[in-house]
């Protein structure tokens, strides 16, 4: 971890080291920069300034300007250059400041990064990790709140990873950087500083009271493609990722529902076995995501659950998602798939 973050963490440290998600990401980057000279961190404002969310704070100071550097505002160029760097053997970790700004680089991701391995029969690969904060709940309106994960899961040749806790963020980021395929690593910005219950009007909770904020020093990795069981239960299965893991968890706790909650952690590759095991046990499945509904990742999950667990299902699969509209500027909390909509879906599922 960079000195700036280390000092911060140490002051809150009562034996175990507790980090928020930003610090955990910073820690993972720091470790990988240390461990592998091919790792390079780049992006808008990531070097001198340390990132708009401070995820790269102190890294340039510690690792120098050739390892951690600022780029111009050129998303297409940033991603394209990273593909070339990767093909030549480097392991770039470009940051796209908000997921909403990834679209100028979409061509490079879809046509180049995702396809290089296939069309060269693995002569060349693009081992890059595109980090990008995504999701809403921060009053960002339509250009700072989107959840575009399904655009990427739809593209063969890309992996999509979404952590929901500091512990996972570190382990998954390290695994992503070491992975030999291009990874889209979406960081749920609403929960950078603390888990979110879905009640925007309640005081924000810091990470330090959450068990998953205990982040060990040094290197560890969480393999891509393994879901995390957040809670075991019998009444229904909840499939979620990112911010919605915490919202769903708090709704289930509040309602006293014996839910089995799976945090998918990676959408591609997907831990389909864990999903099958759980749904076969509970017979009911709720899918929750912030992204818009039509062709969202929930549609894929719903299809998979129906295909694979049909004879175990006691009710149709339910989805709670964002509405099929742009992310609004006002009315954010009417749009956000929060406790009310999740609660209603649970009631419906359980009453069938």
């Amino acid at each position, binding site marked *: 971890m960079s000195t700036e973050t280390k000092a911060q963490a140490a002051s809150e440290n009562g034996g175990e080291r507790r980090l928020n998600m930003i610090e955990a990401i910073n820690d993972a980057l720091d470790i990988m920069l240390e461990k592998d000279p091919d790792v390079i961190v780049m992006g*808008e404002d990531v070097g*001198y300034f340390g990132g*708009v969310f401070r995820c790269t704070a102190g890294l340039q100071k510690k690792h120098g300007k050739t390892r951690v550097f*600022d780029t111009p505002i050129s998303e297409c160029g940033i991603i394209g250059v990273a593909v070339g760097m990767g093909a030549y053997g480097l392991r770039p970790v470009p940051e796209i400041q908000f997921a909403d700004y990834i*679209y100028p680089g979409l061509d490079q991701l879809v046509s180049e990064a995702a396809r290089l391995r296939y069309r060269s029969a693995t002569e060349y690969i693009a081992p890059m990790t595109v980090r990008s904060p995504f999701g809403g709940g921060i*009053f960002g309106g339509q250009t*700072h709140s989107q959840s575009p994960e399904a655009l990427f899961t739809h593209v063969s040749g890309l992996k999509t990873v979404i952590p929901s806790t500091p512990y996972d963020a570190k382990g998954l980021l390290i695994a992503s950087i070491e992975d030999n395929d291009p990874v889209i690593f979406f960081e749920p910005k609403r929960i950078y500083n603390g888990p979110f219950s879905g009640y925007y009007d309640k005081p924000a909770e810091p990470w330090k009271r959450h068990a998953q904020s205990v982040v060990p020093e040094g290197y560890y990795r969480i393999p891509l493609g393994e879901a995390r069981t957040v809670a075991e239960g019998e009444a229904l299965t909840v499939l979620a990722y990112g911010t919605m893991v915490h919202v769903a968890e708090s709704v289930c706790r509040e309602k006293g529902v014996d839910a089995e909650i799976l945090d998918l952690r990676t959408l591609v590759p997907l831990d389909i076995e864990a999903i099958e095991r759980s749904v076969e046990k509970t017979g009911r499945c709720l899918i929750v995501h912030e992204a818009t509904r039509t062709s969202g990742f929930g549609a894929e999950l719903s299809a998979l659950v129906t295909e694979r667990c049909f004879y175990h299902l006691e009710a149709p699969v339910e989805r709670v998602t964002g509405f*099929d509209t742009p992310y609004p500027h006002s009315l954010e909390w009417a749009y956000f798939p929060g406790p009310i909509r999740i609660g209603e879906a649970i009631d419906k599922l359980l009453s069938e």
Partner: protein
Amino acid sequence: MARTAKTRKTPAGNKGKGPAEDVDFALHSLQEAFEKAKRYDASEDELLAFYRQMLLIRRFEEKAGQLYGLGLIGGFCHLYIGQEAVAIGLQSALDNDRDSVITGYRDHGHMLAYGIDPKVIMAELTGRQAGISKGKGGSMHMFSTEHKFYGGHGIVGAQVALGGGLALAHKYNEDGGLCLAYFGDGAANQGQVYETFNMASLWKLPIVFVIENNQYAMGTSTARSSAETEFHRRGTAFRIPGMDVNGMDVLEVRAAAEVAFKHVREGMGPVLMELNTYRYRGHSMSDPAKYRTREEVQDIREHKDPIEGLKKTLVEQGKSEDDLKAIDKEIRKIVAEAADFAENSPEPEPAELYTDVLVEGY
């Protein structure tokens, strides 16, 4: 200003040569024409109008900053304080019946420059139904068909290509209008800007590209992000003439606008103007400003401020301090009313979430 230290590069050998002897004449002739009459010869009424408009932007933005602090404005809010002379100098030279304007997210000043009611602008910032985009756009996304103002866009650089399209439509419709397309020094590094430069020059589109060079893109200074920091040169490869303008003097801006607009209206194709300016406040509202010193900001406020500069001119021409104070008082009242309106207007109905998505409703 950091900027003044840079060397001026009027191509020495080309001085005074006409088009016949100099194949690149078009690329620098505009700057030469501008240098000849650098300050617009404004009438007394015009001077007062400029002063009033710039002051309105300043006071409006100060108020927006306060409302943000009170939690009445949420999310992102980019203030235009320091850059007032750019929007006023340029837009005062437009033909409002024909010309269109497009810009990025730092758009409050451009809206106000049109004389649009500050109430509906402020109400957009607070996300209310009465806002100019019905609370759907927020600070970064405001529009006015009445004034041919095409926004207000949050994605850095995207508006430049849209501006190319507006210009193409002006030409296609033969309506004699031009498009004024603003973008920042940071936005100037987006690839689509250069795709647009090429098309605009190739097709001789009536467009004025305006780079508001306020020295920073968020926390990144131009020197750390740009291989060519003389932004007015960025069009040279596309044979787009550039102009280098002091954006802290409204009269210089206006004089430059006259030269540029004339060129474009004569069907000569695009012009690229670099307006050297400075933003006093943070990039958006939560900016730790670690990337520049307090002294740097203070120095510009004290020595280059566009409003103070014009005030001096007005006083020299015989306006009394009292007259100017009265204007300030009047403007503060307009802004206070706008803030009241924005605070007390209702939020949009939840059903509004589903309107304006597609032609048909859901």
